[in-house]
C-alpha cells in the first residue's frame, strides 16, 4: 500500500483538501437523516478494508502535514501537551500500543525492533530513527506520551481510572473541538463534559462512563462525534478562539463549498495494560462541503440533519449563526429522495 502524503496547510493559506480516494473513505457520522446524542459505542474491530476502521490507528494522506501543524501548535503553546506525574507509566503503555500497532499494520512505513527493553523505532514518513530504552524517560527527547503523539494523528486524552470514575490526567490536544486541556486536566468524566448541554439530563454520561470503566484489555471500543468548522482548522482551541472565531464571519453562499467543513471525530478507547489507564484517541477528519456533496447520499442527509438539529446543539457546536446559510446551500443538494440506511456512500 502506498500513501501519497500531501503537503498542505491547516492555517494561513489553508491548502488542505481531500483526494477523491480520501473522500470515499471519509467517516460520515450520520446513519440516518436526523441526529441526537447516544452512547453509540461499538467494538473497535477491523472491518471494511480501506476504511478508517481497518487499522488500530489510521494513517492517511494528511499524516505528515498534520504532524507539522501539531509541532507548530506546540511551539506556540507547550501547555497543549501535559501529563500529571503519575501518568508517565500510561504514557509508556500508549507508546507501546501505537508503535506495535503501526509496525504490524503499516510495515512499509514503520518498523519496531525490540531486544528486551532496547527498542529501535523507525518512522519513515517523518524521517525518524530512534533507539531508546523502554521505560527509561532519559532515552527519549520528550516524555513517552508526547514523543509518540507527535507522530500520531489525532488528539489523545489519557484517563486514570479510580473511585469509579475516569480522570483526565494527561493529554496531547492540538486538534480539539473547542476545549482546553490546560483547563480540564485533572477533571473527572462528568466535570470535563460539564459544558455539554442536554446530554447530562439524558443520562448519556452516566451510561457512557459505566461502559468505559469496563473497557477491557484487548477489547477496545469506538464511536463517532462531529461538529462544523469554518476553514480547515485543526486547532480550534479556546486558547485561540479570538483568532479563529472571527473567521465565522467570512462565510458566504459563494465560498460555502470551499470554506465550510464537516469535522468528524473518530473516538477510540483502549485499556492500557501496565497502568490500568484508559486512552481516548480523538482522531479528527475534515471534509469540505463541496467535497462531501460529491456523494449525493451524504449531501441529502447532511442537509436534513443540520436543518432539524435542536437549537441548543447547533449553539453548542458553534454554528448557530451560520446555520441558515449552510442549510440553504445544502438544500440545493437535497432532491427529497429517500436515503439508504447506514453511513457508507451508495
Amino acid at each position: 500500500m502506498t500513501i501519497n502524503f500531501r503537503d498542505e496547510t491547516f492555517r494561513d493559506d489553508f491548502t488542505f483538501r481531500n483526494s477523491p480516494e480520501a473522500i470515499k473513505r471519509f467517516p460520515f457520522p450520520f446513519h440516518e437523516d436526523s441526529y441526537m446524542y447516544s452512547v453509540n459505542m461499538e467494538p473497535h474491530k477491523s472491518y471494511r478494508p480501506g476504511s478508517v476502521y481497518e487499522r488500530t490507528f489510521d494513517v492517511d494522506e494528511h499524516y505528515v502535514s498534520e504532524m507539522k501543524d501539531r509541532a507548530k501548535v506546540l511551539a506556540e503553546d507547550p501547555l497543549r501537551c501535559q501529563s500529571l506525574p503519575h501518568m508517565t507509566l500510561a504514557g509508556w503503555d500508549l507508546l507501546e500500543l501505537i508503535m506495535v500497532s503501526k509496525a504490524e499494520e503499516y510495515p512499509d512505513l514503520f518498523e519496531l525492533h525490540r531486544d528486551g527493553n532496547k527498542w529501535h523505532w523507525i518512522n519513515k514518513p517523518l524521517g525518524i530513527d530512534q533507539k531508546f530504552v523502554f521505560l527509561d524517560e532519559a532515552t527519549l527527547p520528550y516524555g513517552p506520551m508526547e514523543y509518540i503523539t507527535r507522530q500520531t494523528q489525532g488528539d489523545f486524552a489519557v484517563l486514570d481510572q479510580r473511585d469509579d470514575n475516569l480522570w483526565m490526567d494527561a493529554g496531547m490536544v492540538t486538534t480539539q473541538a473547542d476545549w482546553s486541556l490546560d483547563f480540564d486536566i485533572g477533571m473527572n468524566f462528568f466535570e470535563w463534559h460539564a459544558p455539554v448541554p442536554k446530554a447530562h439530563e439524558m443520562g448519556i454520561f452516566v451510561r457512557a462512563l459505566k461502559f468505559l470503566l469496563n473497557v477491557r484489555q484487548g477489547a477496545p471500543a469506538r464511536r463517532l462525534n462531529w461538529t462544523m468548522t469554518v476553514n480547515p482548522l485543526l486547532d480550534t482551541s479556546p486558547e485561540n478562539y479570538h483568532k479563529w472565531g472571527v473567521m465565522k464571519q467570512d462565510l458566504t453562499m459563494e465560498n460555502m463549498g470551499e470554506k465550510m467543513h464537516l469535522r468528524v471525530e473518530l473516538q477510540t478507547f483502549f485499556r492500557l495494560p501496565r497502568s490500568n489507564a484508559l486512552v481516548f484517541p480523538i482522531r479528527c477528519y475534515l471534509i469540505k462541503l463541496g467535497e462531501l456533496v460529491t456523494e449525493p447520499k451524504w449531501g441529502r442527509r447532511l442537509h436534513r440533519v443540520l436543518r432539524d438539529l435542536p437549537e441548543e446543539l447547533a449553539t453548542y457546536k458553534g454554528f448557530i449563526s451560520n446555520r441558515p446559510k449552510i442549510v440553504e446551500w445544502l438544500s440545493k443538494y437535497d432532491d427529497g429522495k429517500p436515503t439508504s440506511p447506514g453511513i457508507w456512500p451508495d
Partner: protein
Amino acid sequence: MPKTAFEPSIKSRPIYGTLEPRPGKSHLMIADAEGAEAILDLAKSTPKGMFDHTHIIYIPKKTGETFTGRLRELNPAQCYVGPSYEAALPRLRRVLNDAHMGLQVYLSGSEGLMGQAMLEATNAGIPHSAIQTEHRGSTARRMQCVHCKGITEDVTTDPFQCAHCGLHLFVRDHYSRRIAAFQGVRVDAEEPGNVPEPVERFK
C-alpha cells in the same frame, strides 16, 4: 452572614456544604473574612477537646478585627491571623508537609480562598472529596483567562477585562480545581469590538 445559596449549575462548578466535625486526630481550618463565621458555627457542635488539636489559619481581609477575638476564644492549639493568602502560604505548606493521614481539612469563606487552599491540600495527598467546604461572604470570582492564562482575582462583573492581556472575557461556570479558577473566554471573539455592557453578577 449566612451560608451562601448558589443557583444550580453545571457539573464542574464546585458545590459547597456545611462544615461539620469529623473524626481525626488533627484538624486544619482555613478561612477568610466571613468564613470565620462558619468556623464559629462549627464550634457549636464540636466534640470536647477538638480545638486542642486544631490549627486555624485566618485571613480577615476587610472584616478586620470583627471575628479574630472570637476565633482565639475557641482556644485552638494554633491560631494564625495573617494579612493575605499569599502571606499564609508558606505556613500552610509547612503544616501539610508534616501532616499525617487522618488530618481533617475545613475550608470556609470566598471561592478563591477555598479553591487555592484545596489545591495545596490535594497536592499534599488529600482527596478533594474528603475536604470540607462552606461558602460565606463574597461571591466574587477568581478567573483564568483561557487565552493568556493570567488569573484575575475578585471579578464581580460579566464580562470583565483580563488584568493581564486586556481582552474582554465572559464568565463561564466551568471550573478547574487544578487552577482554582473559573474560565474566562473572549466575549467579542466572533465580532471584535462588540463588547456588551458589564453587568454586576457577583458581590
